């Protein structure tokens, strides 16, 4: 029942305006200066939250990263919401999330207004044709990094089947939602967990 007590406490103490502003401004700064998304941000989060502001200790930081990684959504948003809630409740989490999103939003919106006109310049279009080859590499690289973490034979089979299906369906223009792949993956994960559990039970019973 520990968490209930904390929850009430957090609700009772009203966050000061100063703290709210500080939360917003810190997250705004992080949003403005991190390139390359999620994982690049984690380092900056650590230096701001743990070293400078002392909003959390190292252990809680690792806990936060674990939650941010294994829940849906961008890691940066998850971390911002988490730290905001810890420091100043729901209002704090809303301000932190707004802070981390606002720089991206503003910059990309301004770029998007001029982007088509920019691409109409012949050499810019050529540069972007070159960049597209680079995007292929960046995505491949991100995939290979994840691939290296996969060890179990079942997981390798699931991954290979996913690749095969997606590429074939795409080439033959068959529609199959990406979400289904993710749901099937979750189902396989659950099924393999329960099968392993049943097998262990049987073993225990047979040894008795």
């Amino acid at each position, binding site marked *: 029942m520990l968490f209930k007590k904390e929850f009430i406490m957090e609700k009772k103490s009203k966050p000061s305006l100063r703290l709210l502003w500080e939360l917003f401004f810190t997250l705004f700064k992080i949003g403005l200066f991190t390139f390359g998304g999620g994982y690049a941000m984690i380092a900056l989060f650590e230096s701001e939250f743990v070293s400078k502001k002392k909003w959390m200790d190292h252990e809680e930081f690792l806990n936060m990263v674990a939650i941010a990684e294994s829940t849906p959504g961008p890691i940066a948003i998850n971390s911002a919401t988490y730290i905001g809630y810890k420091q100043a409740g729901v209002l704090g989490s809303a301000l932190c*999330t707004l802070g981390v999103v606002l720089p991206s939003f503003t910059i990309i919106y301004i770029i*998007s207004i001029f*982007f088509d006109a920019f691409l109409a310049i012949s050499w810019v279009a*050529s540069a*972007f044709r070159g960049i597209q080859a680079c995007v292929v590499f960046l995505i491949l690289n991100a995939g290979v990094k994840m691939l290296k973490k996969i060890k179990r034979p079942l997981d390798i089979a*699931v991954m290979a089947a996913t690749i095969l299906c997606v590429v074939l369906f795409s080439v033959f223009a068959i529609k199959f939602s990406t979400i289904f792949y993710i749901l099937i993956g979750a189902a396989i994960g659950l099924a393999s967990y329960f099968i392993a559990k049943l097998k262990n039970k049987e073993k225990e019973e047979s040894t008795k």
Partner: protein
Amino acid sequence: MIYLELFLTFFKIGLFTIGGGYAMIPLVREEALNFGLTESEIMNFIAVSESTPGPIAVNMATFVGSSQGGILGSAVATLGVVLPSFIIILLISALLKNLLKYAGVNAALSGVRPVVAGLILATSITMFLSVVLGLGTIDDGVSFDWRAAVILGIVWATSFGYKKWKKKAVSPILLIVTSGVLGVVFYEFLK
């Protein structure tokens, strides 16, 4: 109603992106193609999202939203992609502190991880087919673009060499700038 559609689409993307950043690219690509964007437009958006600050997911949502519905479109798309995270993290930190300790949740997540890796790798393969071989679907036929293949080779060699030399990964922005210069050289001057 384009705004509602954008909001719901990106809410769905936010909800099913597990594993951060690149994990959402297969989802965004699929939905962006449904909105009528082309593969090369999507890749341009990815390149810009990578070379501007902020989470890729937010950048992509703002970009696609703006292309479909102006400023309001980009606002609802961004709100959509952020909201699932926001709600779920609030729930976890306020009420479900032990959610990630349940074996079932972990089992499901461990099943999702190889799928996400597969989706990302498959996306890079379909993009490779489109950029280097001009192949979108089987009806397109193959047209080999040697320039793209050479640029891809140089980018790979640069990244590989940098890692050997400096013992750390090269910044994606440096690779994007390099490939942009190569693009100008190959497609403007070596026509």
